[in-house]
């Protein structure tokens, strides 16, 4: 092949596309990944940051305590430790009188610790930080107060919930 050979345009296009793809893969490897836990409550899906979810377990026997509000159904025992239970449906505008939640997601932060009732755990996955979008300004309903972002999961938009906002709604 002579030094003056010029690749056909079609080949130059392919080379350029390959180069861009390689650059994108390098960027993807370096980008920070965030673990999220996707769960269902009623007909909708939500997510927590995975770093806040320490354990997922069956709901089991919840001990009722008098004088607590509806969103605090009581206590559970997890390997000898007493944990409070939160019915997050109250804050999401979901019907709390529907089928009892089957699972509890134990969330722990520096200032908050509680078992969150959920219907099901749908996925635990890593996503790029850039994949978390700001919540739509058109998002309505009581759930909006807890949403800190949105992610795409299997072609579905999932609301990412803020544990700190939930804590502020629960604690006196």
């Amino acid at each position, binding site marked *: 092949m002579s030094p003056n050979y010029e690749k056909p345009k079609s080949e130059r296009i392919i080379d350029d596309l390959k180069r861009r793809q390689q650059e994108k893969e390098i960027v993807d490897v370096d980008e920070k990944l965030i673990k999220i836990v996707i769960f269902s409550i009623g007909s909708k899906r939500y997510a927590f940051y995975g770093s806040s979810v320490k354990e997922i377990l069956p709901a089991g*026997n919840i*001990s*009722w*305590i*008098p*004088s*607590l*509000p509806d969103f*605090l159904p009581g*206590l559970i*025992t997890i390997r*000898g*430790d*007493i*944990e*409070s239970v*939160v019915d997050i449906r109250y804050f999401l505008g979901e019907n709390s009188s529907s089928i009892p939640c089957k699972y509890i997601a134990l969330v722990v932060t520096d200032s*908050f*610790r*509680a078992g969150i009732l959920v219907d099901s755990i749908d996925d635990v996955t890593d996503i790029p930080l850039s994949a978390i979008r700001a919540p739509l300004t058109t998002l309505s309903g009581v759930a909006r107060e807890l949403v800190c972002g949105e992610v795409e999961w299997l072609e579905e938009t999932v609301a990412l919930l803020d544990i700190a906002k939930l804590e502020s709604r*629960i*604690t*006196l």
Partner: protein
Amino acid sequence: MSKADGQLEIDNVGILVFSVGGVSFGVESSQIAAIDPGRTGGGFKIIKLNALLGLADGSDNDAGVVLEFRQECSTNRLLLVDKIEDIFEIPLSDIQLLPEVIAERVLQRGIWGVIQQGNNILLLIDINRLLKNMDSSSSEKTVSMQIQISQEDIL
């Protein structure tokens, strides 16, 4: 048992378990001055504990047990419960405080800790604290304490 610095360490705690409104509670036994199964009350006013706790009335008209609770700096108070279930002593280490999420809310009703009994949880109640809050609510006429009883709840 006392520590070298003069502080008293509590090893064991006596717990009396009673039920009211279908819920079992444990109270530190030294809070109880007397038990009156005949619920006569000696002519003194008897308060239905289920009313203070917002629970259903689980006792029949003539059933129930009157517990006389010692009051700090005050006359003893008589409270009606459904029945006495148990009395035992446990190590202090077996008592757990309530999670922070709910502790402040239920402390107004005197509920301060739990004891695990197998798969069940026994709620520990401080009757002195409950009655103190009730008295404060009555004297200040505040509704924020959420402890209101009607004349029907005093026998």
